[in-house]
């Protein structure tokens, strides 16, 4: 999922690109949320005693529970969410998807087996792995969103790409997804953990692409090439290339073309590129994904009043939710839509660009920190080795 180790790379080389804060600090902003990813995480996480929540007739309701209450939390904090659903996956993803289907099948078998012989813990573990988002889940979530008055859109292909485009076109402030490849799709700002449960107390992470690029000292082309090398959804990773090597290879050879040439010509054959590795197509997908343009009439979003009776009918009558809680939630939805909205200062005062001196300062400090970290790691390793080297019982 996403780009392997990208978060770690950013944390190390461009720490100022990541801001953490509380959800309420995002108030007054519009955010495009990757719906498919969220629904998947609800199906996994919204559980009671390890079992998915179900209605009386045994239908799963975890996704609706998650969608309803987490969206409500977002709205309560003054954020205007809009959801983007996945369309058909691009062809290149079929490899990854096939693998996922295989893994699901394995997990389903293991789940069955665990039910027979394993511990309760195993059963729960495998049951989580068998989770799949079906068309019905998606349709039910869309129906719920319509009743809540929250807008959504179907992306032609990848939801992250559509979220990124909406953010780039300033239709929304940021794209919200856990998937780091949203940055490859050129989203200026990525929010993570937005749809997490309140109880997890995870701060919202705000990742700024321009600062990532400045910190890595790369342009967008190089950044996308780096991400492909780190490992994306579309291509198999190159064996033995981890985050450090990937970064070094791109720094040394600038582009994937250069890297590929180097690997092929390397007499020592240190790395080997997988047989089928159409990196140019993958790059094309990141640069020109199939998305709805921002001026499409479908991209005009309106937040409307919730249909209270509709919500009660759907959630209470059909799905067995508690009526009082649904009604009080509907009141909160109404309240947040009405009334005057607190503005943010950024709407009036624009940040001044940093001076060259300040930028150099930040960079220097970051390098110092990384140096220190490395030294610490080394000394720790050394200490470990020394303790290992000692024969037992002499201490």
């Amino acid at each position: 999922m996403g780009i392997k180790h990208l978060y770690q790379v950013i944390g190390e080389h461009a720490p100022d690109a990541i801001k953490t804060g509380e959800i309420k600090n995002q108030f007054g902003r519009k955010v495009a949320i990757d719906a498919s990813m969220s629904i998947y995480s609800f199906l996994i996480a919204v559980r009671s005693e390890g079992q998915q929540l179900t209605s009386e007739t045994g239908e799963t309701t975890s996704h609706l529970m998650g969608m309803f209450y987490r969206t409500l939390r977002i709205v309560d904090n003054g954020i205007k969410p809009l959801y983007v659903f996945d369309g058909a996956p691009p062809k290149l993803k079929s490899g990854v998807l096939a693998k996922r289907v295989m893994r699901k099948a394995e997990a389903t078998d293991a789940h069955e087996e665990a039910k027979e012989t394993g511990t309760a813990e195993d059963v729960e573990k495998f049951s989580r792995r068998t989770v799949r988002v079906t068309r019905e889940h998606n349709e039910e979530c869309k129906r719920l969103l319509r009743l809540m008055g929250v807008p959504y859109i179907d992306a032609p292909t990848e939801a992250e790409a559509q979220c990124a485009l909406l953010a780039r076109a300033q239709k929304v402030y940021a794209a919200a997804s856990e998937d780091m490849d949203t940055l490859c799709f050129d989203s200026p700002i990525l929010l993570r953990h937005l749809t997490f449960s309140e109880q997890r107390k995870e701060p919202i992470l705000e990742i700024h692409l321009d600062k990532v690029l400045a910190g890595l000292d790369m342009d967008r082309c190089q950044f996308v090439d780096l991400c492909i090398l780190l490992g994306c959804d579309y291509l198999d990773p190159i064996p033995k290339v981890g985050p450090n090597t990937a970064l070094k290879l791109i720094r040394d050879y600038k582009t994937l073309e250069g890297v590929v040439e180097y690997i092929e010509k390397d007499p020592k054959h240190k790395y080997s590129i997988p047989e089928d590795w159409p990196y140019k197509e993958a790059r094309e997908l990141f640069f020109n994904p199939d998305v709805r343009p921002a001026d499409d009439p479908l991209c005009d979003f309106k937040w409307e009043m919730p249909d209270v009776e509709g919500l009660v009918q759907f959630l209470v009558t059909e799905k067995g939710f508690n009526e009082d809680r649904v009604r009080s939630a509907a009141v909160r939805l109404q309240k947040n839509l009405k009334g005057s909205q607190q503005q943010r200062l950024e709407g009036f005062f624009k940040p001044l660009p940093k001076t060259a001196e300040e930028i150099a300062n930040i960079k220097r400090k970051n390098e110092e920190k990384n140096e220190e970290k490395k030294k610490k790691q080394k000394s720790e390793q050394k200490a470990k080795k020394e303790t290992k080297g000692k024969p037992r019982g002499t201490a």
Partner: protein
Amino acid sequence: MEARLEQALLLKRVVEAIKDLVQDCNFDCNDTGIALQAMDNSHVALVSMLLKAEAFSPYRCDRNIPIGINLTSLTKVLRCAQNDDILTLKAEDSPDTINLTFESSESDRLSEYDIKLMDIDQDHLGIPETEYAATITMPSAEFQRICRDLIALSESVSIEATKEGVKFSCAGDIGNGSVTLRSHTNVEKPELNVEIDLAEPVALTFSLKYLVNFCKASALSGSVKLCLSNEVPLLVEYGLSGSSWLRFYLAPKIGDEE
């Protein structure tokens, strides 16, 4: 950098006034004085302070030095100073700590503290020069009272300035209330004057929670200046001695356009 302040009270009060709004901030020192600009966490309010070199005696600073400091720590140390103590700030060119000394004005007591500094990465906002539609000067205690009275009823206040005067009104669950002030000149007690300078009528709504917070600066100055224009943040200014100032900006609440 070295700056000597005749009375520790000034810095104590400034920090006291802003520490609930911002936790960490940079004091930017250069040859003209010490400046501070910081937004609150939710990016609704902004504090801006300028202590000009003239406010100190003497003041010396040859380079631009940002002094990033945690205001809670600073408060702790400033509590160790008596109001009338002579306060001296000292920092090196690229400092790790800031040194504060307090000299008692009455005895030979001398106390000295160092506070560790921090790297604070914050955006500087450009604040455009604005010709405000209405400028209201009033006793700071009066403004504080209005805010405290009205927050009992509602979380926001609408400020309406017209030819007749300025009206602060609010409406909440239990009812509504308003306070109206007119231009007023008191010859005997000029500190009670209310002045309204109006180019055109304005009406704006603000969060009272923030205004009450700003009022913590009331101890710094007998009068406060409110500057309003439609669709821009409110400016609340407390003048300090020697044309230094402490300013607060607050983004308005606006009825939804959609």
